[in-house]
């Protein structure tokens, strides 16, 4: 009996340690195991909502799994040979029907408020049109008449060529670097108009807390406001064919002054409307 108890005790401790390790893991390393905190007010709010939901689920999990494992350990036949007879309890059943409602409200209210904030497109200072193609992105700045085609960088392309054995570890930002990034100013509310040129793609940059489908023939609108200059990477997130895994997104956020310099420089390099280097259509259509 004492040996059994010792085994049960050590199992409980092991379980507690394991769950502690699992719970601690996402909090410890931000980049490899959890959502990025990001660089926009929205991504910060999304992160907080995510963590709130995560910890609430952990709490409920501890209770439910605790009950299950308690029962598994202490109500096994060797310890509890005569089963109880009960098969209903109105009070308990009402409690565990009503209680989850309140728990859900705690999550639903901040989620709804945040959603309304995300959908508020008013007072944007700059518009960038994003078009997804098989398999590249196009960024258009109507105010500046700029057209940027952004496809997988040559270095990544060299590593993914079949039969070429360039190690991906030798490529900087393997599969997350592009020929020409999308350049935007920091601190400004930027409206993104997203559409698809052929099939459905999805524009997803985790650090911006934003993902939106690029539907052919339809336009979706979202906004971002990047607080910190830097390079933020993402990728197409809707299966769109052969090259789906090879159409990354790179957003370079520069302070407004440097952004305008980039605009001037780009316009000097590429004159006339419809400029840019649109590659031949991969399917030859």
């Amino acid at each position, binding site marked *: 009996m004492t040996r059994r108890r010792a085994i049960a005790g050590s199992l409980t401790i092991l379980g507690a340690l394991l769950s502690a390790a699992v719970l601690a893991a996402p909090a410890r390393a931000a980049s490899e195991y959890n959502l990025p905190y990001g660089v926009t007010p929205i991504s910060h709010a999304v992160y907080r909502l995510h963590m709130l939901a995560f910890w609430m689920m952990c709490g409920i999990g501890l209770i439910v799994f605790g009950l299950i494992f308690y*029962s598994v350990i202490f109500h096994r036949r060797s310890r509890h040979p005569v089963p109880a007879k009960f098969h209903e309890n109105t009070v308990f059943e009402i409690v565990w029907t009503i209680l989850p409602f309140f728990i859900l409200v705690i999550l639903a209210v901040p989620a709804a408020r945040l959603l309304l904030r995300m959908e508020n497109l008013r007072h944007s200072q700059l518009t960038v049109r994003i078009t997804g193609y098989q398999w590249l992105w196009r960024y258009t700045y109507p105010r500046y008449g700029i057209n940027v085609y952004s496809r997988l960088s040559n270095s990544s392309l060299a590593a993914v060529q079949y039969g070429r054995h360039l190690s991906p570890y030798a490529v900087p930002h393997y*599969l997350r670097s592009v020929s020409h990034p999308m350049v935007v100013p920091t601190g400004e509310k930027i409206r993104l108009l997203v559409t698809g040129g052929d099939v459905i793609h999805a524009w997803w940059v985790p650090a911006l807390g934003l993902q939106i489908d690029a*539907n052919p023939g339809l336009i979706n609108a979202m906004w971002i406001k990047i607080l910190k200059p830097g390079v933020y990477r993402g990728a197409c997130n809707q299966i769109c064919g052969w090259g789906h895994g090879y159409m990354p997104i790179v957003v370079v956020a520069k302070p407004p002054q440097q952004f305008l310099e980039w605009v001037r420089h780009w316009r000097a390099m590429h004159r006339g409307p419809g400029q840019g280097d649109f590659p031949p259509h991969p399917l030859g259509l």
Partner: protein
Amino acid sequence: MSSEVLAHEHAAEHAPPRGFMRWITTTNHKDIGTMYLVLSLIMFFVGGAMAMVIRAQLFRPDMQLVTPLFFNQMATMHGLIMIFGAVMPAFVGLANWMIPMMIGAPDMALPRLNNWSFWILPFAFTLLLITLFLPGGGPQGGWTMYVPFNLQLGYGFPFMIFAIHLMGISSVMGAINIIATILNMRAPGMTLMKMPLFVWAWLITAYLLIAVMPVLAGGVTMQLLDRYFGTHFFSVAGGGSPILWEHVFWFFGHPEVYIMILPAFGIISEIIPTFSRKPIFGYRSMVYALASIAFLSFIVWGHHMFVVGMPVAADLFFMFSTMLIAVPTGIKIFNWVATMWKGSLTFETPMLFAVAFIVLFTIGGFSGVMLALVPADFQYNNSYFVVAHFHYVLVTGAVFAIMAAVYYWLPKWTGHMYNEFWGKTHFWLSAIAANVLYFPMHFLGLAGMPRRIPDYPLQFANLNMVVSIGGFVFGLSQLIFVAVIFSCVRAGKKAEARAWEGARGLEWTLPSPVPYHSFSTPPEIA
């Protein structure tokens, strides 16, 4: 026709034809149930082999084992085969075997329809699988078949559409049969509220099937028309919209995922009381919870489409309705725990799978609640977080429940006890490997790894290797499952009629193995 001839024909019915013709011409619910289960097992390995290709390709970055084109076909076919070929036929097979025996009926209500429902399926999967050898390859757009990309497929496109039509016809006929059986063939005295929960779960599932399979059939027909007959249902240029497909698909798709989980709830509700030696807690609320989940499944499809660009009001509606599902699902989980509470538990293989189901399905439920939050879903959507979520509910949920059911009822079907040691070995290997396989996917998704990509940036390398190793172990462990089933069919310790001492229910009053015809006269229901 003289009465002598009739009598002769009647006698002939009792001895099935020998050999292959028995299986082709059979109208016996037990034979058809067996065929469904065998087909499901074969498809489980076909779909599993595709999963192995996927995990081998993702073992490390820049693996280049298969082309991205072939990878996309594997990802798509893995989904289609596992859903329509492995999980759904397994549940229909269990329904065929168990429902007549659980309600005291001699057979299914529509035996010839039953035969046809099954025999359509091998043709459907042949059609689907040969697309892999056609010019342009098999389906590549994911099992969701989003247009316009799906319309770019090669010669495999119409084959896929017709395969889906056949699967849908088979499912609808099976569902009609199950409803007709349950509503008309119960033994006298078995009122609806005395039915086993597995039967209740299947009754509700069958209505879901009848409601949504025609929607899918209509949707894929619209794709067919768009491609070959010049319609523009899904093209904006012609006045349609690709979003229409997503709405049609998910109006089918969300009830579909409950079609794959409600029978699992029923199975768990049979197994937990047996090995707890205690009646199910809250039978009535279990039935009402099943019905509420089924109802809610029709008004939540938009939660698959939060990033599609729906109006805010729609986003809010679908978020709230989705969160509501947590309430009836929670009731079921609490009731199972309350059934175990102060029972007298033993842990034979079916019980191990059932307890693992409750724990791991709940983890899938937790990530489900998180996914329901629209702003957070803007990050989770289509990432590996989603992959982790639905594999927790479908593999450690639905598939574990199917395995639990197979171990639970194998003694009844074969008359032999299976090998408990190997059953438990199969369980522990599967349960541990499944978590090594699926848990890190949560982290990968949160860190930004999209699903359905043949290659990934280096920051995802470590976890992907862990996931792949878990995948290989999980895949290989299933060979034990097959070995246990085979050896149990051939030989083993003789099983008693009531193979499990805590088992209640009509099926355990029949001898093991069950005779070819059972309950020719209805049993007395106390």
